[in-house]
């Protein structure tokens, strides 16, 4: 049997197929407008990859910048002398745990945490020690002056009266 009509509608028409076409044609697709979403931006694979690459670069740059800033800040907080190694290594012994003799507080205090090597270096720095001593001296001097002033303000009338009486 020749099935050209079934294949491409050419040749002698097959009445059975024509009948089926006529009946089934009632179910044929009826054009209806497509309702698309208001706006949809397409992203091609290439565009997507390039955007991804840009985003990755920005993230890496931000992370690197953050690291760099952190390193800069750390370097600024440590004086340059701190990197000078002392002639002889200084051993810092951890203080013994503080024991409180109060019977009500007989629990021993935990040992103080170990100092950070950088802090140790900073404290062992001779300049820092000298500065600390100067500061202490200045504080002591200020304290003495304050005491003297306080003493003067406490008994001025008495002295004056004695002077007058004398």
């Amino acid at each position, binding site marked *: 049997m020749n099935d050209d009509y*079934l294949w491409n509608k050419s040749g002698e028409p097959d009445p059975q197929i024509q009948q089926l076409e006529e009946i089934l*044609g009632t179910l044929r697709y009826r054009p209806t407008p497509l309702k698309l979403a208001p706006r949809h931006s397409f992203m091609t694979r290439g565009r997507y990859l390039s955007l991804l690459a840009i985003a990755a670069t920005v993230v890496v740059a931000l992370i690197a910048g953050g690291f760099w800033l952190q390193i800069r800040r750390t370097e600024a907080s440590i004086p340059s002398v701190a990197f000078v190694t002392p002639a002889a290594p200084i051993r810092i012994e951890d203080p013994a745990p503080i024991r409180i003799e109060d019977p009500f507080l007989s629990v021993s205090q935990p040992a103080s945490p170990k100092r950070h090597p950088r802090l140790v270096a900073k404290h062992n720095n001779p300049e820092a020690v000298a500065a600390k001593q100067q500061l202490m001296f200045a504080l002591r001097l200020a304290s003495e002056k304050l005491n003297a002033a306080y003493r003067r303000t406490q008994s001025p009338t008495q002295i004056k009266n004695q002077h007058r009486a004398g």
Partner: protein
Amino acid sequence: MATANMLLMKPLANAAPEPAAEAPVEIGLVKAVLEGDRDGFSRLYDLYAPLVHGILLARVPRAEVDDLVQDIFLHAFKKLHTLRDSSAFGPWIAMIARNRAVDFHRRSRETVEITDDLPGSDKQEARAAEILELIRSLPDAYRETLVLRLVEGMTGPEIASRTGLTAASVRVNLHRGMKLLREKLGFTEGL
């Protein structure tokens, strides 16, 4: 089998020219749509809506087909950038339609009772629904090809080019499917 082999070997002397010119149209349209031309997608919809409609009609209840066609094209519109080969838009959307039909049955089995298509208002539509049911009872490959041919009015070469199947496969499917349908309808071959 012998008939199928004969069909496969038969030269397509009377065959209508393959719509080879359609491929560049698809490529151009897909490219235009990806560049933001929404009208291009409307043209793709006009070209391929009958194909999707036919594929769905062969698988899901008639009442669901129109909504599913819209859903499938909206999905395709959103996912068009994932289509690697622009010339394969037809096979791509056909596959989406088949998958969506499978999903429909998977979901409806759990929640919705599948009802037969309601008979149409007139006699011819009722008869059409009956024949469609017979076509749906045929094997998958035959029913899709037959619906595209008999309902949507596409020719064999058109079916082949739009679905991505080989012309030989479509021809065999049409021939075997038609033979089975004739048997079911009680037609005597060669009438």
